[in-house]
């Protein structure tokens, strides 16, 4: 019997809300899928679309971006700027054939430890259903073999 596919997920989170939320999930001893690799950044406004592309290029099957709820940003409006950027970036990804389902966005506050755990579980399930991003992985593989000689 083959092993179920375990997606690699990269989560870019802001340090003031979602990271604190993840911390709360941990201290509350909530169990969530171990597929996620969390990368902490000062603010969602710091998350350049380049990060998302780079994560996919380095073999992530899905990317999660999460920050403070609107109005709660530590820097007042970093998340508003981020929201505009994501709106545009999502449509660009969709248009170039990188499915929107592979990049997810959410707001999770420092108090929402349980929301964090539930979200990680549900997106892991979603990405597992999607399976590996074969078209992109094929390209990655080509560059890797070229680099070995």
């Amino acid at each position: 019997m083959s092993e179920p596919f375990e997606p690699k997920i990269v989560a870019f989170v802001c340090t003031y809300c979602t990271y604190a939320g993840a911390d709360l999930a941990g201290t509350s001893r909530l169990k969530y899928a171990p597929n996620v690799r969390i990368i902490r950044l000062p603010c969602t406004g710091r998350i350049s679309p380049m990060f998302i592309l780079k994560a996919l290029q380095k073999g992530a099957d899905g990317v999660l971006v999460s920050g403070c709820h609107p109005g709660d940003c530590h820097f007042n409006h970093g998340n508003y700027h981020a929201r505009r950027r994501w709106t545009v970036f999502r449509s660009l990804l969709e248009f170039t054939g990188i499915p929107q389902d592979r990049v997810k966005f959410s707001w999770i506050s420092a108090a929402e430890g349980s929301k964090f755990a539930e979200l990680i579980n549900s997106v892991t399930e979603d990405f597992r259903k999607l399976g590996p991003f074969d078209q992109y992985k094929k390209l990655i593989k080509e560059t890797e073999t070229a680099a070995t000689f």
Partner: protein
Amino acid sequence: MSTQETYKTKVKELLSSGKVKMVIGYKAGTTADRRRPHFMRTPEEVDQLVLDSACITNLSGYLLSEGLLSDGKEIAVFLKPDGIRSINILAAEAQLQSNQVVVLGFDINGSEISALQGERASDFQALTSSSNEARLHKQQHPESARLEQMTPAERFAYWEDAFSRCIKCYACRQACPMCYCRRCIVDNNQPQWVNTSSHTLGNFEWNIVRAFHLAGRCVECGNCGRACPVNIPLGLLNMKMTDEVLQSFNHYPGVSETQEPVLASFKKNDSETFIL
């Protein structure tokens, strides 16, 4: 007198009176249907000036050549409506002061050209507003519509094929009036955001990031697509971005120089249907 002759007289006057230090226009290119940029500093050079329906390049990018505008003197430049919009954007992004730019406006209708009245980019407000209106009701490009009908996998294959041709010459960047960064993200090697080899993987990143950086700034002049030596349909990506900012934020780039850049501003009630 033809539009070209009228403008020749006007340009000579501008140069001999010393109102502007340079006029940027067009002259004959290597083939009959091509024009190349012509930088005129003396009235004698004006004789070579050509202005006809083949003058399609957006010349506004030349204004940002290093140090060109730093002496505070004025420069006149031949611009179509899209070029005038790029002046507005560059002014809004503090790359130039629009009172240093004398606009020699013209428009192309088929094989005819007509002069546009006005001297500063701000004089063309009615024109940019009407072009905003026209863009809102513009039919979607058939190729673009065809792509949107596809599944993501098919679209990926389409772009994989297109981007596999990219040789990373960055002609699209050089030709674009909006790509003025002194140090482009692809020239950065610490960290290396975009692979320097022209493999499809890095080409994806480069072309996506290029289109993203032009979102809400592109005036759809088509310089990038014409510059591309391997005919990647770059215009489709830019068009998609313009559609997106129009739909989501009702933003049409370059309407006026007081317009806020769309990705450098926000509204508290921006739509967020996609956020979990």
